[in-house]
């Protein structure tokens, strides 16, 4: 399972960087989206995958018995998802403003059109 996910993560990183290197603003946004997904998946996978073992202390015991799914990476990923959601919302609003002001989706022309 880890191998498959590692390949998926690598693919996502590659695709996201490819998209970010494109000149289109829309592709840039897609690139950023995929990038956050790739990072989240990486955190989740790197900490190890344990299936069907929730970290719940059984009645009578004082600690969780050994193989159990680590809840911390999931908490980290959750935080990262929320933050990247906010960032992406802002990025979308900003690029919309940029598109309306510049009437172009081309990042190269965005820079050259500078009045000062």
């Amino acid at each position: 399972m880890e191998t498959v996910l590692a390949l998926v993560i690598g693919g996502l990183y590659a695709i996201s960087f490819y998209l970010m290197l494109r000149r289109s603003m829309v592709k840039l946004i897609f690139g950023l989206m995929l990038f956050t997904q790739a990072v989240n998946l990486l955190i989740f996978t790197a900490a190890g995958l344990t299936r069907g073992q929730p970290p719940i202390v059984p009645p009578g015991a004082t600690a969780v018995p050994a193989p159990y799914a680590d809840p911390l990476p999931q908490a980290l990923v959750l935080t990262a998802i929320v933050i990247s959601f906010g960032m992406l919302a802002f990025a979308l609003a900003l690029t919309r403003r940029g598109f309306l002001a510049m009437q172009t989706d081309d990042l190269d022309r965005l820079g050259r059109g500078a009045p000062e």
Partner: protein
Amino acid sequence: MSTIVVVPILVPLCAAIAGLLAAGRSALQRALSVAGAAAQLAVGVALLHTVHTRGIQVQQLGHWPAPFGITIVADLFSAIMVTLSGLVGLCVSLFALVDIGPERERFAFHPLLHFLLMGVAGAFLTGDLFNLFVWFELIIMTSFVLLALGGERPQIEGAVKYLTLNFIASGLFLTALGILYGQFGTLNMADLAIRLDSQPSGVGLSSAMLMLVAFGIKAGVFPLFFWLPDSYHTPPAAVTALFAGLLTKVGVYAMIRVLTLVFTADLLVLAPLIVTASLLTMVTGVLGAAAQSDIRRLLAFHIISQIGYMTLGLGLRTEAALAASVFYIVHNVIAKTNLFFVAGAIRHIRGTSELRELGGLYRDEPRLAALFLIPALALAGIPPLSGFIAKFTLVKAALTADAFLPAAVALGVGMLTLYSMTKIWAEAFWKAAPADADGGTRAPVPIVMLLPIIALTTLTVLLGVLPGTLLDLASGAAMQLLDRRQYLDAVLGTAR
């Protein structure tokens, strides 16, 4: 346990919320903003005093012991940075009273300023890497809005670049965190430091490298600086001064903290790279500045050039060099913020910051001319100002460490900085005003604008004439950075 460590995070939070509640009542909001920033400065000084007299202060949030909960910790370096952020915050909130128009104020400029200060204080004080990531996100989220607030065309352009690069930097940082957690199962800096010592692995180096790139983007280190001059000059001067003074230094702070505390073994490997990058940062920044003809763009390139001096201290890895870095950060934050204020004041009275369209300012505004000259000469490193002491200690540290090339480059870049500053002086202040020049208010610079400039200029002179106190603090901070035992004991306590 000491409560004072969390106060620098709580004060701006309260100020920001109070400011939001006072939305629509402009006068009240402004008063709250200045009062909040003044309180932050006071808290910063109190924290610095506490840390200086009683050692490293730690607070475990929710009383969860160190590796499990989030640790808030203040050593001398953090306390110095928090104090600086309070100082810059206060000056910016004063300057913004005139500089930020009612339009931007209506869109919550003042609360945003305090949210930013909260993020900055949090980043300086946290002892947990994931928490550092969260503070970084708070900082860049507020800075995005501050940068784009107003929605002028160049601002939008600058904001797109700024957003993309910071997004990527955060992603790389988070990647490093994921890898580190997967390997070591902890993100507490002190705990991670011990685990990396006991089981060194290639994972440490790769994470250190990822973080170096992420913080390098934020700090504007060569070759990752190109977004900075494209975006920093676009918003109003108060915002630019805030960014120039604080944001890049958060990147430098994070770099120094992480590499001295957590990745000490990897710092050995990375040191030559850091020195090379620092030197190239200095040179490209100052050469880029020489080609500019807009004051704000010119100063933005100088931000980059100066960052090189700060990271050079880290690359040299000696106590004296780190102390010089800390001193340099303090000097630079004060001088740089001040120069952007002066540029803002010029723009306020003349309606432009383009050197070709300026002139005659020495005749019209002799006070402002004097107030420009002092931080400008300080930036170039002319005695007896703060920049001289900063450069002197750094070059001396470089020579002691047998790093002759860095010392020579540092001195040469100082000369070129002087060239840029004389260029501004000759064009904006000395030459006669162009015949067709008009625009701006043409009135004398308002006293509210001059006040923070005067305060920062006084500090620049004081740090140059009486550097003793700060030099002691800086070498104390460097000692704590290099001798990690104090930090580890304070954070982990008996858990070790």
